[in-house]
């Protein structure tokens, strides 16, 4: 087996089957058509990685939150698609796609409509009558609005005053005012966050983000929205340059009511439920899977995550193993429960031996299933990636899939029985032995997340072991035990640290991030696997506050 160092810890990065070319792991990355080898730099001294100086598009959720924050009212920006990310997270990756022209046109329409809807209400904040709106009055207003929309204490309002000056005589004050709102929302300063650092400093080495950039990055990461006034004030005075003050602000934000909003969004994406509206099931098989039930499922997993973060001290282990949840009237039949507890706000115990943690809640299960089928292999693939950071590559070209018929299996064989035949084929086994234990364990849940003990009348065998891991290799009888094993596994804790890092930094981790990840893991473990504490460690790290010098 291949052993890699991870700071002070040693761990098995990927199993022996790597030799068969199955696993990409963190390194499923191709340059010039060649698969990078994960072990190549082992033991070599490497410079700690810093993200490059960059601009970074806001996620649709952040953009929506910020417009709401600026307007002081809920806004409906759907269907806003600024950009998408392809590694399981929605938060736009740094190297990601940029604005598509027709999406930009949609965005333009969308914000023009918002501006028209909110203009009169926002005009009441002007401090002057709309009919008497002049540059001075508008200047104050745009400066205040820009602090939120552009997330900076220094707003250059001149372009917007000029726009107003051009349009007001021709269109009237109201339409000119609307146009200003539209232009501000469409501005690249609204759409992109900036992480350049003060590149003019004479010193060599990494560049610390400016006070303003730190305020912006911190607020977006922790709160998923724009900095509040206190943060902006400190940013304006350059005070966040002082690590002590910066640290105090981290703790203030984490302790605030919205302090876990960024983490909650990351967890929703990690659990695969952030875009649950798009999940569809075969109506002939699952007529009950309607919008009401979907809303209940999303609401349940949200309450569950919130409960873990607030009542269960943010424990990752509890997130993965807790056997209680918030079952409302619509979800009760999914669980086979008669009770309902949503009104009380207290979790109820789930049927014994059937559920453990967020990945076994109906929303997460439905999201990782197909429309009519369980999506057996896909589930294994997703869980390997999310929990163990093992990326199984898709099969190479020209793979012959065997018909179980030809393998002498009965027609009503369980899916597990049929898939086990694949392990006998050398070409398939390398990857499928990694996928199968998790895939098989999850077979006790149907495509909408109901527990089931049989398939085609035959008992389902969910037992197995993740024998290719070092710290999660205890045999388990079912998914509940599997998640208990996983919840206590250092490999899972390490992987979660990496997932959080990727989410916060918008890029993959690599060998050069190992020291930082090991330190964060140490803090995470010594704080009882508190995910909030992990977030704290990550935003306090130099990797968060510094960028490469250009």
């Amino acid at each position, binding site marked *: 087996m291949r052993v890699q160092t991870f700071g002070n810890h040693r761990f098995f990065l990927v199993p022996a089957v790597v030799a068969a070319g199955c696993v990409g792991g963190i390194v499923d*990355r191709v340059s010039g058509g060649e698969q990078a080898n994960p072990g190549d730099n082992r033991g070599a001294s490497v410079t700690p990685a810093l993200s490059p*100086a*960059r*601009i970074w598009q806001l996620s649709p959720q952040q953009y929506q939150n910020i417009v709401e924050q600026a307007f002081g009212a809920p806004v409906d920006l759907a269907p806003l698609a600024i950009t998408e990310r*392809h590694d399981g997270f929605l938060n736009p990756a740094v190297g990601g796609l940029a604005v598509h022209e027709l999406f930009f046109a949609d965005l333009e329409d969308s914000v023009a409509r918002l501006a028209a809807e909110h203009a009169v209400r926002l005009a009441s904040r002007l401090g002057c009558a709309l009919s008497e709106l002049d540059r001075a009055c508008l200047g104050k207003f745009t400066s205040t609005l820009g602090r939120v929309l552009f997330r900076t204490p220094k707003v250059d309002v001149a372009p917007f005053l000029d726009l107003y000056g051009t349009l007001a005589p021709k269109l009237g004050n*109201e339409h000119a005012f609307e*146009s200003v709102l539209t232009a501000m929302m469409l501005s690249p300063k609204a759409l992109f966050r900036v992480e350049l650092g003060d590149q003019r400093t004479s010193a060599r080495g990494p560049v610390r983000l400016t006070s303003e950039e730190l305020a912006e990055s911190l607020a977006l990461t922790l709160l998923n929205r724009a900095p509040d006034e206190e943060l902006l004030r400190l940013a304006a005075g350059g005070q966040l340059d002082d690590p002590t003050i910066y640290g105090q602000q981290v703790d203030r934000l984490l302790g605030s009511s919205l302090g876990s909003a960024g983490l909650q969004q990351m967890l929703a994406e990690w659990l695969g439920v952030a875009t649950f509206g798009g999940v569809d099931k075969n109506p002939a098989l699952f007529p009950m899977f309607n919008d009401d039930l979907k809303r209940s499922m999303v609401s349940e997993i949200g309450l569950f995550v919130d409960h873990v973060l607030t009542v269960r001290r943010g424990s990752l282990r509890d997130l993965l193993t807790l056997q209680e949840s918030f079952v409302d009237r619509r979800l009760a039949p999914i669980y086979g429960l008669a009770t309902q507890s949503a009104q009380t706000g207290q979790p109820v115990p789930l049927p014994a031996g059937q559920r453990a943690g967020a990945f076994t809640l109906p929303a997460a299960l439905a999201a990782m299933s197909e429309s009519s089928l369980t999506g057996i292999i896909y589930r294994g693939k997703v869980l390997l990636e999310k929990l163990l950071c093992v990326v199984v*590559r898709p099969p190479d070209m020209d793979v012959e899939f065997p018909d179980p018929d030809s393998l002498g299996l009965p027609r009503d064989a369980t899916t597990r029985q049929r898939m086990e035949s694949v392990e006998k084929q050398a070409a398939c086994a390398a990857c499928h032995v990694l996928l199968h234990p998790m895939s098989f364990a999850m077979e006790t849940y149907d495509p909408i997340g109901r527990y089931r003990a049989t398939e085609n009348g035959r008992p389902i065998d969910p037992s197995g072991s993740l024998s290719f891991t070092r710290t999660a290799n205890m045999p388990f009888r079912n998914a509940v035990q599997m998640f208990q094993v996983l919840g206590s596994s250092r490999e899972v804790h390490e992987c979660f640290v990496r997932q959080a890092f990727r989410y916060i930094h918008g890029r993959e981790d690599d060998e050069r991030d190992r020291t930082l990840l090991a330190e964060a893991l140490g803090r995470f473990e010594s704080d009882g696997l508190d995910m909030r504490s992990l977030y704290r460690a990550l935003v306090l790290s130099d990797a968060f506050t510094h960028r490469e010098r250009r």
Partner: protein
Amino acid sequence: MKLSRRDVVARLGAGALLAWPILSATRPAAGATIKKRFVTFFSSSGVRQDLFWPKGTPGAFDAGLYSLDGTSLQPLEPYLSEIIIPKGIKIDRGPGDSHDAGTVAALTGDHPRSLTFRSKPVARGESVDHFLAKALCKETPEKLLVLGVRLRVLRMSKYTSYDERGYEVEPLQSPYTLYDRVFKRFARSCGSPGSGTGGQGQVWELLRLQKRSILDTVRVQTAEMMRLYGLDANERQKLERMEEAIRSVELRLTADPETTPAAPGVSGCATVKQTMEAGTRVSDDDASFPKLLKLHLDLVALAFELDITRVITISLSLGGSGGAPMRWLQWRDSAGRSAAIDASHHNVTHGLERNVANYREKLQVIDRWNFEQFAYLVGKLKAIEEGGSTALDNGILWYATDVGDGKSHSSTLMPFIVAGRAGGSLKSGRYMAFTDQPRHQRLLTDFCHRLGVDIPEFGQPGAGGGGSLL
């Protein structure tokens, strides 16, 4: 003249404020030159090979050497003289998931640069549709249009088309967005030519001024960011793309749609306009797949009738897991009972391995349905008359896919179909058989040549040479 919201609503309807129509570019007068076009109709997962190829001997259609009897191509029977069926082409897609790699390779003519989205861009260069659009769409207001139907899953096989940098072009999936954004301004004249009035023209002038001023403000800020931030190439391209997006919206702000001339002899225009502007819309779900596809195909034809663009790619399925279950199709078992096909094309190709019984019978139904859709588009293009010839005569319509056979993911015997005569440079009505397995880059290169774009080869260097294929 001051413009109040009430004025706008009264004159143009509430929709004018919500979905601000893009104003017209001037359509070129119908010229004497041939309008060469290129359409790719992409349907993943290959075909049942045993039912695809014509019966008989390769040769010319009019020699009566082959027929489509008993094949899944039967819906194309009326168009036998318009199509070439080239047997024996191999898709050169390189390693990786054959659906992902096959989809990237099909139009780019090259292996993917990256096998996952973790490393972008995924393609090595632009796709042939993107390339051809630059040559063929010089006179049209729109360039390449990339359309898709219910491509719900984010994976490489979602993307057929790539720009010069190898970044994917996002397919437009809502026919309504497509219509509102691209067609509406031209379709205004359909059915009611010359309805424009001077007063509204003035309103449009002001609306245009407003929109252009907003865009100018945003564009200046974008350029300023590029200048001040000293970004490297990767960071810069994000703002460059934003700038391009702003410019593309501005480009559509050139003329008053009220004075856009009526399109003479545009038969389908009024019908499409009526359908697209009707109060009830086809819902965006898997069950509506056939309806959404038809709306798209009608818009493809209308785009050519109105000469909005000359290059279009439409993808109607996603290779690999995640495609739409084809429940709108019925298959019959041996006892004659019919039932809905409750799996995606991809899953059906894998049969029992994906829990789909009787997959061969179901594939027969799916393949036939796919070719009915393709035949519908062939018929639509043939019905567009253009000075003695038809839109089909003047272009190339390519049926493309990612794999030869869905079950085995084979790369050989690609079931491609080429319809049209490329303005006379292509002799249609043939069944061809190649024994040397020519790589598909040669086909792409040939497309370029037939459409009058002279390049040594398209795609992977060294792969597309060897002379004309068709």
